[in-house]
């Protein structure tokens, strides 16, 4: 079975091993260590790590399409944010009449902009199962429609990148509008509880952190399963020689569509887990800048390796946390420099440095082929 194949694979076993080890260690240190001990992991740190893991999952999703399909999506933030909003809407509905106005149905921002009744697209989000389905469906459908149009008319390479950017930009503008009924710039916030667990308790935080870890594990295995399957090789074929693949009888656009949709859904899940941990979702997650940044995490980690994406995401964001603390001005220089150096001098990323001999077959091929996009 394609999903179990990766589990027999050394690299995947290694990755899962490290991941779960980390999860367990953090949990142990958080629960068992006394507050004042140096080894104690505060719930603040736990949430922080949880956030990193969300980013990591998003990065894996991006790597799946960029690394193996050659589609550089500058709009994955959109899928991430959609997943986030789906979760956010559920959390808003959970507040119920505990909002400041005590309105049983309407979220606060609707009350003071005196909306009369709940917009239709908010219906159903009071039910967890519905919300969680939407977490997958909303980004999935967007990816399906967008991808269907784009791939059918063979929009690829640079053009695709640019219109994915346009897509997320348009969505950002749209969600900024208060008429949209998603809270405009203030977004959705002040969440109370998730599935009955109070979001303010450390236990819930730990739970979310673990859930994210597991989600990352599953996401990784799914992606790995795809890329190690024959379909994965077909994707690489599409990436490197689209026309040839067609003449072999493969429907390139469908392969692209399938992988793109899967990736979008993973991004959605990442977003959904992100929101309850950071406690807010607002349109700035749609900003093209964010989406591009994600791509750089992948580039830094090493594209077409999946675990590289994870490494990149965690490294960059850790750097961000540290730098913005000690030298805020330097941060953008650092990030910008990273973009340049990685792309120019480190095309295979960190993973490329670590495991050069491994999985040569996944590496991007000669630039020439990508250029003809």
């Amino acid at each position, binding site marked *: 079975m394609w999903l179990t194949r990766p589990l027999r694979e050394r690299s995947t076993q290694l990755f899962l091993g490290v991941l779960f080890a980390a999860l367990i260690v953090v949990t142990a240190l958080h629960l068992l260590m006394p507050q004042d001990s140096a080894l104690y992991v*505060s*719930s*603040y740190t736990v*949430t*922080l790590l949880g*956030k990193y893991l969300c980013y990591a999952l998003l990065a894996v999703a991006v790597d799946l399409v960029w690394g193996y399909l050659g589609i550089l999506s500058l709009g994955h933030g959109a899928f991430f944010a959609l997943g986030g909003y789906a979760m956010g809407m559920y959390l808003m509905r959970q507040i119920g*009449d*505990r*909002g*400041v*106005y*005590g*309105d049983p149905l309407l979220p*606060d*921002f609707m*009350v*003071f*902009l*005196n909306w009369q009744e709940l917009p239709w697209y908010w219906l159903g989000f009071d039910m967890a199962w519905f919300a969680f389905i939407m977490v997958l469906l909303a980004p999935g459908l967007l990816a399906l429609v967008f991808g269907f149009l784009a791939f059918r008319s063979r929009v690829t390479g640079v053009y695709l990148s640019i219109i994915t950017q346009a897509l997320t930009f348009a969505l950002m*503008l749209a969600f*900024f*509008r*208060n008429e949209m009924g998603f809270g*405009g*710039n*203030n*977004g959705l*916030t*002040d*969440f*109370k509880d998730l599935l009955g667990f109070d979001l*303010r308790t450390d236990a819930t935080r730990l739970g979310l952190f673990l859930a994210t870890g597991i989600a990352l594990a599953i996401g990784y295995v799914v992606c790995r399963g795809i890329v190690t399957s024959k379909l994965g090789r077909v994707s690489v074929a599409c990436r490197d020689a689209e026309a040839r693949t067609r003449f072999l009888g493969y429907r390139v656009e469908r392969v692209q569509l399938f992988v793109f949709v899967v990736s979008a859904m993973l991004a959605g899940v990442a977003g959904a887990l992100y929101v309850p941990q*950071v*406690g*807010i979702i*607002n349109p*700035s997650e749609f900003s093209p800048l964010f989406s591009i940044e994600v791509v750089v995490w992948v580039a830094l980690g090493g594209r077409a390796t999946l675990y590289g994406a994870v490494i990149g995401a965690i490294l960059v964001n850790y750097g961000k946390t540290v730098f*913005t*603390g000690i030298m*805020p*001005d330097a*941060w*953008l220089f650092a990030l910008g420099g990273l973009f340049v150096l990685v792309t120019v001098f480190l095309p295979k990323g960190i993973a490329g440095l670590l495991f050069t001999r491994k999985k040569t077959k996944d590496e991007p091929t000669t630039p020439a082929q990508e250029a003809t996009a």
Partner: protein
Amino acid sequence: MSIKKHVKLGLSALALSISFNSVAAEDPIKVGILHSLSGTMAISESTLKDTMLMLIEKQNEAGGVLGRQLEPVVVDPASNWPLFAEKARELLAKEEVDVIFGNWTSVSRKSVLPVVEELNGLLFYPVQYEGEESSENVFYTGAAPNQQAIPAVDYLMNDIGVERWVLAGTDYVYPRTTNKILETYLKDKGVAADDIMINYTPFGHSNWQAIVSDIKTFGNAGKKTAVVSTINGDANVPFYRELGNQGIDAADIPVVAFSVGEQELSGIDTGPLVGHLAAWNYFMSVDNDANYDFIDAWVEYTGNEEAVTNDPMEAHYIGFNMYIEAVKKAGTADVDAVKDAIIGVSVPNLTGGYATMMPNHHITKPVLIGEIQDNGQFSVVWETPSTVAGDAWSDFLPGSKDLISDWRKPLFCGNFNVVSGTCGGKSEVAAE
């Protein structure tokens, strides 16, 4: 000159209170500063960080408070809203600060709010905002709508005789709410619906041609027309440029802005704007010694002759002094003690009056209307006879007209519904 007297009083009071303090050196009081130093908001917020650092420095020179020094803890939320929550948590949980001064945008405040409440911190929020909020842990030293928008409209209506209104704003919660309030208010005052034009634009909107020409047409209906602008930051420059070029000068259609202060003007060629209005609770040009001293101190601190002061800076000045007073009153920096002590504390503001912390955690402020001058300053043309108390819940919004906020025992509720006599929302959760 009763104002002068007030100031003298206030200053002497301040001096007095500062002068005696026990010399026993304990560990310092940690003051968290939560302002973006990078990203889009850095423009506005970094100056507030410096203001705080200056105030703390001065306070320490004066011997700190209760014999304890103040220690600033600066973090950078980088104009990223989730990061605001994260950094707030860091300040409270890791750094264990006694108080936080910070935030500018509503969204950042909203994202910090749950954290501050959960970890029972203190937050002083220095920017004018949309109201509709009152938290046990937050002190709003900026203007609520009734301390800026409503008086400004009154001025236009009564002194300028405006009959036709354009409410133009950037599309986010502050303008939305303010305009909702103003709309209701104007209608209550008998303004016909078709004498009100409401327009929203995205952040950083730069192409104002069509909108300005609409305003022009709207203003040509034979009634005196004014624009009430809640347009945010960057969008203002092209907006005023377009006004100037399309020949709308303050004499025909005055624009009164709530988000354009000295700092914003420093980036605009003010020539064509002379005479347009802004409503604030403080202007750098206010002719008052306390203000001049503050300006001198600021210029000295920044080492920049051109450095300007603005309303949020005054808000921090007031907030900071209130905190100091409250700590003295409580005799400790313990959060709950300070929370109780600070209500009723009043300190001199920079416009020659006093600011008092009300039970709803908003403060009393004078409202000034200023006209833009060619030197990037405002000249005050009108001010409220007395200070106005901030109103957390607007009387002009259906959702909140019955709500009041009073953080004193026994009521101790941020949104008490006077009709149903219940305390809704948050505190109910707290009760659970």
